[in-house]
């Protein structure tokens, strides 16, 4: 079955999705569902791994925020083959991150049924935190789905610049745009496993509405516009070493950005290894040469290296900026660079699990212009 | 045009059974590289290149070979033999064709054969070449009344420049006669 429809009662789209999850959890081969949910006693959203269908009530599959990118959590569940599979409700950026991690052998794609939905975006952690603390998150919940009534500008910058809000790569895509969500949501199978699952849920088949494509296009166009202006701003803000230094002036080498980064998959960053446990003499030698150095050292070195290491895998989820204690806009810079580096290799992070990371392969005949002195050719 | 592959001569063939045998023997190792043809100063006048000819030899295409006048144009400069990478002797093979043509009294080469024979006879008889008697004898043998006309203008030109000698005494003849006899003896077959 390709596409099914689910009835929306009381305009509660999230509940319709909970029903879907309930049916999936009822399947024999599915052990548990990982889905964002509200922690009991708090309004905070975290990924929950639910086995008991009754606990689905705690889930918030269309949560307006994500404290962390759950891709790494999916990896924890799929590192090795298990007899049964899990299902996971993921945001498009989480799906892309997971696909990148699968390429890096951190998880097994076939161990998880991925359920994604059109992503209206999320609040930055701090704003969402503030909203929940105020105790009234109705605006951050119900109204959120009914975009565009939500104030776009309060959404995370990463989300506003996200030109891939569709759950590409999911087994099941919950379609919200171009669909009358007051009445129904549609679930589209995007893979063979997705189709198999749908076959067994006993839901009503339906075609996707024609107006969906246009609705999606509108969202993507708006975000692309935002993205491009963000690129321009960021590039201008960092186009010299001086500006770059300024950009990272508040960085304290806490490495939170890389801990929050879903695709930074190293157990320990090279900058935290003994390679950077410099000999005291080394610091003295540096300051002797330069007259003055900032402590801790290697800040720009770290960020540039991380760009070299990870920009081709960046999925633009924005968790790096979320995680920065000093509000450095790491995401904007990363995305600006990633856009160029991924384009250079005709690569798009998370697009296709079959595509190999650009630096994991090479061809004999490619990039002929990269070798040789450029100005010589011009002459 | 398709033709069946003609039988191929082997070393045991007698000259009578296969007149080509001796040339085939000489030219079998030819690899058709064309060095002979490119080297040949007369190639431009030939209807078949020497290489073409050797190929026909290998294929035993007697009739095609003797439809061609290529070998009659060989001036025996031996360029081809000097350069043949197979170490063959195409010049000698050309000479062999001339022999076959002469022996076989092939009409199409009558001009050449008669001229050659009359030339030799003339020298043998006179001890040197006497152009007038040579041409007279040649015309007689050819029995073609129109033939002398073809040579008339050339003859006139030569005569005006005193290039044609008048009949003289057969001074050198007796000495040469011994030479010719010896050659006959050596060749054995009297051709």
């Amino acid at each position: 079955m390709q596409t099914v429809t689910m009835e929306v009662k009381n305009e509660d789209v999230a509940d319709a999705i909970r029903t879907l999850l309930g049916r999936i959890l009822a399947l024999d081969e599915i052990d548990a569902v990982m889905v964002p949910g509200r922690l009991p006693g708090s309004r905070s959203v975290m990924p929950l791994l639910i086995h008991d269908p009754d606990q689905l009530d705690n889930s918030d599959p269309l949560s307006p925020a994500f404290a962390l990118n759950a891709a790494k959590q999916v990896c924890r569940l799929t590192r090795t083959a298990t007899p049964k599979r899990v299902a996971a409700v993921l945001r498009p950026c989480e799906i892309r991150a997971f696909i990148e991690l699968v390429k890096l052998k951190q998880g097994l794609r076939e161990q998880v049924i991925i359920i994604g939905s059109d992503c209206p975006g999320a609040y930055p952690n701090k704003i969402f935190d503030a909203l929940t603390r105020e105790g009234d998150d109705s605006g951050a919940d119900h109204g959120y789905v009914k975009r565009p009534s939500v104030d776009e500008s309060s959404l995370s910058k990463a989300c506003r610049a996200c030109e891939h809000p569709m759950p590409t790569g999911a087994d099941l895509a919950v379609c919200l745009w171009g669909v009358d969500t007051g009445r129904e949501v549609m679930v589209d199978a995007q893979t063979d496993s997705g189709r198999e699952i749908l076959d067994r849920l006993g839901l009503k088949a339906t075609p996707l509405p024609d107006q969906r494509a246009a609705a999606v296009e509108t969202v993507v166009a708006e975000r692309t516009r935002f993205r491009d202006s963000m690129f321009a701003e960021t590039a201008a803000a960092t186009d010299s070493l001086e500006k770059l230094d300024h950009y990272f002036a508040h960085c304290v080498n806490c490495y939170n950005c890389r801990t929050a980064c879903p695709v930074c998959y190293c157990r320990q960053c090279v900058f935290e290894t003994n390679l950077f446990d410099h000999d005291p003499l080394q610091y003295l030698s540096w300051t002797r040469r330069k007259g003055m150095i900032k402590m801790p050292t290697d800040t720009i070195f770290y960020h540039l290296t991380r760009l070299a290491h990870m920009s081709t895998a960046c999925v633009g989820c924005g968790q790096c900026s979320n995680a920065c204690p000093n509000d450095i806009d790491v995401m904007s810079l990363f995305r600006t660079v990633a856009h160029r580096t991924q384009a250079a290799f005709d690569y798009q992070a998370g697009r296709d699990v079959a595509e190999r990371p650009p630096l994991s392969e090479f061809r004999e005949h490619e990039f002929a212009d990269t070798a040789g002195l450029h100005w010589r050719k011009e002459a | 045009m398709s033709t069946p592959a003609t039988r191929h001569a082997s070393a045991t063939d007698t000259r009578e059974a296969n007149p080509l045998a001796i040339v085939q023997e000489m030219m079998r190792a030819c690899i058709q590289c064309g060095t002979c043809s490119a080297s040949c100063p007369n190639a431009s006048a030939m209807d078949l290149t020497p290489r073409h000819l050797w190929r026909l030899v290998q294929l035993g295409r007697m009739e095609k070979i003797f439809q061609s006048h290529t070998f009659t144009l060989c001036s025996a400069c031996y360029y081809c033999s000097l350069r043949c990478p197979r170490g063959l002797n195409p010049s000698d093979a050309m000479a062999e064709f001339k022999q076959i043509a002469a022996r076989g009294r092939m009409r199409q080469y009558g001009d050449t054969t008669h001229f050659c024979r009359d030339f030799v006879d003339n020298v043998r008889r006179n001890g040197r070449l006497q152009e007038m008697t040579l041409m007279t004898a040649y015309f007689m043998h050819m029995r073609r009344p129109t033939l002398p006309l073809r040579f008339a203008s050339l003859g006139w030109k030569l005569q005006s420049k005193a290039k044609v000698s008048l009949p003289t005494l057969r001074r050198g003849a007796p000495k040469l006669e011994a030479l010719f006899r010896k050659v006959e003896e050596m060749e054995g077959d009297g051709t």
Partner: protein
Amino acid sequence: MQSFEPLIIAFVCNWCTYTAADLAGTSRLTYPSNVRLIRVMCTGMVDPQYIIKAFLEGADAVLVSGCHPGDCHYINGNFKARRRIRLLKEILPQFGFEADRLQLTWIGASDGIQFTQTMRELTERTRELGPVASRSQMVF
């Protein structure tokens, strides 16, 4: 600006370009003393980190040079290097390191003259570009 002498760090592969450098030496060809050679086993072992480090620490240009395609002692290290340089050529220019400051060349064992020429041209080009803007004031 006139007295600016650039510092160039060249990562050269042990098999080809280093041999070319030696050949230049034995042929009594000279190249600018602006160049510091760092011999590596293969261009394929040049981690992007090294290049970034070199630029941040004071190199005005970085050259990575190895065997011609197909010639790599380790079969395909130079192809891997080419991708890394391609990557860095997207990243570094964004931050004020002009693209010309990072170069990849194939210099074979017999190319002693080409080696010195490349070194001279790169030095000259870097001299034209001048020092990396504002790096000397940075304290990262």
